[in-house]
């Protein structure tokens, strides 16, 4: 049985950047596995532009961004098996510490691949209707925004003509514009929360520019129509997100698109025994993006949902480099202290750190909209870093670099929290 140095599960932007990160550090025996027929992941269906502003300093479409990485992967001669679905990840029974990746494809059949290291880069999937438990009928015409995007952009078919969108995540916003450009009428975008979960630039460019109403603090309370959707009833919600009686409004439509959140695709990781963070839905990792299983790393949307692909690439490159270090036998200094999210901060990645890690960036999201706050990093009562911020919103991930100097002051668990400005 051949033993690979690195198997990367998922060939989206995260998987490709991770493979390249390892390659540039001398790892050669790499295999990328993806169930799709081409590399690129979800970017293949994101034909709008807005990718790569940070990384390439220019505005690319999703496929263009992916193509740059795919070309480099090909130029380096990194092996890929496409149309190949990974079904299982487990530790080898022989005590070697190897991982066994089980995959299936119509060309190669049933595969069992041994690898010294694995990078998890499976991305995420959309939350479906069921998870919302919206009462009513179950007709045709209810799609997740991503499925609609695939129909329109890849297959060339329209899922409907009169559309209501529930949820103002980025994919929903992008699809509001896309459906409008294709001649559909987008009647409203309803958002349960008092703020949008999407990027501000998408609200402006995808809704405001087209006069599509964004109804904050609204939800769909009922779906109508037996065979095809005939309409939805929407209602305003109160502070505890319960529909307010009397505020119902019926909107006739033939399509309901859902953009109600993304869930990291971690069935494989869970089954393999990787320790998970209940808030992110992804693995618990240290600053090297190593999971609780030695030699298994995670990056991109499978680790936590990113809004910008540039950060995905950055994080994935780090994961690939860490796999290379692991293969060199450089005992990576694992996470010795915990990084905790407090007061307004929902989560922080990485969840573990060590003081000798060298410069590290913390990525986090807040739980609500806050204005004029300070982002504070503490170790016990000691303030390591305090940075003022005009506004933080749940829809935009924050990135906070910590220098080696700051890290060297760590002598216990670290917390990241928000403080009201001038509250000292």
């Amino acid at each position, binding site marked *: 049985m051949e033993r690979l140095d690195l198997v990367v599960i998922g060939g989206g932007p995260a998987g490709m950047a991770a493979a390249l990160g390892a390659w540039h550090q001398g790892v050669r025996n790499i295999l990328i596995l993806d*169930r799709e027929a081409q590399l690129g992941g979800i970017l293949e269906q994101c034909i709008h532009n807005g990718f790569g502003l940070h990384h390439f300093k220019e505005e690319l479409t999703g496929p263009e961004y992916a193509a740059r990485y795919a070309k480099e992967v090909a130029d380096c001669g990194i092996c890929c098996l496409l*149309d190949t*679905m990974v*079904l299982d990840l487990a530790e080898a029974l022989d005590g070697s510490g190897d991982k066994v990746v*089980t995959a*299936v*494809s*119509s*060309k*190669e*059949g*049933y595969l*069992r691949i041994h690898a010294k290291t694995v990078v998890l880069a499976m991305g995420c*999937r*959309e939350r*479906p*209707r*069921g*998870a919302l*438990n919206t*009462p*009513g*009928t*179950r*007709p*045709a015409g209810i*799609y*997740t925004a*991503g*499925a609609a995007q*695939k*129909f*329109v952009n*890849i*297959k*060339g*078919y*329209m*899922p*409907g*003509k009169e559309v209501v969108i529930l949820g103002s995540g980025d994919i929903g916003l992008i699809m509001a514009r896309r459906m409008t450009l*294709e*001649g559909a009428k987008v009647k409203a975008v309803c958002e349960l929360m008092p703020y949008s979960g999407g990027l501000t630039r998408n609200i402006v460019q995808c809704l405001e520019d087209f006069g599509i109403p964004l109804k904050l603090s609204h939800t769909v*309370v*009922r779906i109508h129509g*037996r*065979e*095809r959707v005939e309409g939805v009833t929407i209602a305003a919600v109160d502070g505890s997100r319960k529909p307010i009686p009397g505020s119902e409004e019926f909107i006739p439509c*033939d399509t309901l698109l859902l953009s109600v959140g993304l869930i990291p695709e971690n069935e494989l990781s869970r089954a393999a025994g990787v320790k998970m963070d209940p808030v992110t839905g992804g693995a618990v990792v240290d600053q090297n993006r190593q999971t609780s299983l030695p030699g298994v790393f995670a990056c991109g949307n499978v680790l936590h949902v990113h809004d910008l692909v540039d950060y995905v690439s950055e994080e994935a490159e780090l994961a690939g480099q860490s796999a290379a270090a692991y293969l060199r036998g450089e005992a990576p200094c694992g996470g010795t202290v915990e990084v905790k999210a407090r007061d307004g901060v929902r989560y922080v990645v990485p969840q573990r750190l060590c003081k000798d890690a060298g410069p590290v960036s913390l990525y986090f999201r807040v739980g609500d909209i806050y204005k004029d706050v300070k982002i504070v990093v503490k170790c016990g009562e000691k303030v390591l870093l305090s940075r003022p911020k005009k506004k933080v919103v749940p829809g935009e991930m924050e990135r906070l670099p910590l220098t080696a100097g700051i890290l060297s002051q760590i002598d216990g668990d670290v917390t990241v929290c928000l403080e009201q400005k001038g509250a000292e």
Partner: protein
Amino acid sequence: MEKVYDVAVIGGGVVGGMTLRELSRYQLKTILLEQAEDVVMGASKANSAIVHAGFDAEPGTLKAQYNVEGNALMEAVTGELSVPFRRNGSMVLAFSEEDLKTLRDLQERGRKNGVPGVRLMSREEALSQEPNLSEEIKGALWAPSGGIVCPYELATAAIGNAMDNGAELKTGFRVTGIEKENGNFVVISEAGEKLYARYLVNAAGVHADEVARMIGDDSFSITPRRGEYMLLDKTQGATVFATIFQPPTKMGKGVLVTPTVDGNLLVGPTSEDISDKADTATTPEGLEKVERLSKLSVPSVNLRAVITSFAGLRATPGGGDFIIGPSAADAGFINAAGIESPGLTASPAIAVAVVKHLEEAGLVLIKREDFSSFRKPFPKFRRMSGAEREALIRQDASFGRIVCRCETITEGEILAAIRRNPPARDVDAVKRRTRAGMGRCQGGFCGPQVVEILSRELGLPMDEVTKCGGASRMLVGKTKETQ
């Protein structure tokens, strides 16, 4: 000369399906008539999926008799049809002294009905067997012969097996009139199509009263009684092992919490009389009730893991008991009506009884030499070993292409669903036969691919593929660029 069928069965649910299969043992020309564009679109696809032990039905009723008989037949039937079935046992909880008395009554009923092994359990024993039950319980009733089965898989397999043995199927045939001509029944569809048969079986579910009236039989009426459910992700499937019932009280029947044969957790149903025989919408009140009541039995039930909710309609007969036998209006017309719960369980026994009634009415039954009661197992990649998977892919590469990733369903299985009896013609039909789209993402990802495969296999344009027949088109046309 018109083709005259020996028997036409009206209604393609589990009762009609099992009856068709029973008839296909004999040298007969039989046909199943179903109004929807696929079989198993009524109560048989949306119910609790429990193979009831039989302690609930009142002794002496047809319900009690066929429940216990059907339960005993379930191993053989599911074995022959290659449908998964598990005797996980049923447990009824008591929350008060009064409930304990109810349990003793149920135990006595079970004894009278001939249900094997029914016994009372102490609180401690129940909790040690089912650690997630409420601490509040006072005791429980245990029936080891209770089981779980996939109802639509069972009904579809029965119909497929009958068709493999020569029975015919006509979907999209809504019976709106029945006449008599030269001693034969003339069955007329909504579209005006006519079909001739010597005998009819009325297995039309909630509509059975209307069908009976077509021959002048107005001896019974059916009220639709809706039951709403929530289905939870497979991560929750091991919350309980047995099927957990609540005791019937003046307040109602309570809800059950049960694993399904496919490894999910099911909670429900509500019970509400409605007037519209097609209203399977779920309601905020219903779902809220399911949530509240299920937590009484299993406080830790994780309703955040809901992947879908649905509702089914019980065909509640005015008289309370199943109506099985020849109509007073015409001896050649056999009713199998008012088949509410435990109809799924009872269906194999009801089918045997219906065929017996047909024989008594004059139908001559001659065994077919070439009848096979076995249905070739539907390929299930997800349940195969590595070696089996390897062999299957080598034989047919379409089994190496995973279409539904939540449930690990291959293209090969989808093709089998489209090609085997009874053939799948729409997205939901594929889903019921293969589970593609039944997992946690509910078809978000495999939906587009299933539409493509159906379009290719059926030679239909993509935008004519439907979710469940009729006007339920998945797509409304091409984009500007591709027009």
